[in-house]
């Protein structure tokens, strides 16, 4: 539905479930996500898709595919807070073959465009554990580290900080040379 240069954000489909289950049961992926590492069954995943597909009151979960239609991951905005005009965002590039090729960057840019230009939000935030190498990408995309929740997560025998990153629409627009209406009072 929303197209970037390389990827498309579309609705989740029941037939996506098998791939998601394979990715979510890959420890390298799941340990970086909020739920943490645990076995996930196909029926749990189908249940999740039927509950979470489409627009929800405070969230939207997208499947992410290449422009040719190859499913490679998922992303979402959630904890949508209309009064304060902000949300949280999250994602995964589940398909290991599709990493390091610019799909992740394009997925995030496309999702940010939705958050700022479709939903009209003022601020987008994300949480990332300190061992997540994607942090470098978030900083390159303009996210500012606002703080750290100390030793929040136990992974592979160690405690890790969870960082909070934030990006304002004004910052996003200035960095990308996009002209926006001045934020009102």
């Amino acid at each position, binding site marked *: 539905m929303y197209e970037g240069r390389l990827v498309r954000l579309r609705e989740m489909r029941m037939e996506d479930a098998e791939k998601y289950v394979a990715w979510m049961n890959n420890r390298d992926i799941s340990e970086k996500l909020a739920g943490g590492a645990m076995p996930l069954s196909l029926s749990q995943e189908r249940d999740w898709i039927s509950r979470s597909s489409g627009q929800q009151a405070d969230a939207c979960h997208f499947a992410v595919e290449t422009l040719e239609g190859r499913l490679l991951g998922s992303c979402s905005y959630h904890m949508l807070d*209309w*009064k*304060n*005009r902000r949300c949280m965002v999250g994602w995964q590039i589940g398909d290991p073959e599709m990493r390091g090729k610019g799909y992740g960057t394009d997925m995030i840019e496309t999702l940010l465009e939705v958050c700022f230009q*479709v*939903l*009209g939000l003022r601020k987008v935030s994300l949480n990332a554990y300190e061992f997540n190498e994607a942090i470098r990408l978030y900083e390159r995309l303009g996210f500012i580290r606002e703080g750290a929740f100390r030793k929040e997560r136990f992974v592979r025998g160690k405690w890790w900080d969870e960082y909070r990153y934030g990006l304002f629409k004004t910052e996003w627009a200035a960095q990308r040379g996009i002209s926006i209406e001045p934020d*009102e*009072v």
Partner: protein
Amino acid sequence: MPHIHGENVFLRDFRQEDISGMRAWCNDPGITRFLGGRYTAPIPWEQTESELNRYLNGDAGGYNLVIAEKETGKYLGQCALFMIDHMTRKAELAIVLAPESIGKGYGSEALKLLLSFGFGEVNLNRIWLSVNCNNARAIHVYEKAGFTREGVLRQDRYIGGAYEDVAVLSILREEYYHV
């Protein structure tokens, strides 16, 4: 939600005992002739009760508030921001007063409080309403509060044997804060 305090009235949550206040206007043609729609038929007690229950349970949608007398908390009328469109940051506004509360400035004050809540707390960009063109008293109150008449829906309601025009009025955030 915290109460919103003005000089002579405050806006508060609905309470069980507000049913008598709600009944005081809902079948009064002097009031309901401007409301049209479902108010053209007499409203049974049970319908008012189930409406009140929706407010009490918080599942009526939007923000529904009682206009209450400052000293006693007595029900004077009610107001609402509804049809809330968060992405566009707009809502429709409605106010109704019980017959004995009319003409005392309560409506103007409640409107002022509701606008400050809508722009200052709900963070809206546009608040709009529709009102019968021949309801001059109401239109005067809205225009005094900063609303602009932005259009007329011609012969939009059929009331008392005749078509009546309906005006659409709105106030924008920039107007509210800069006028």
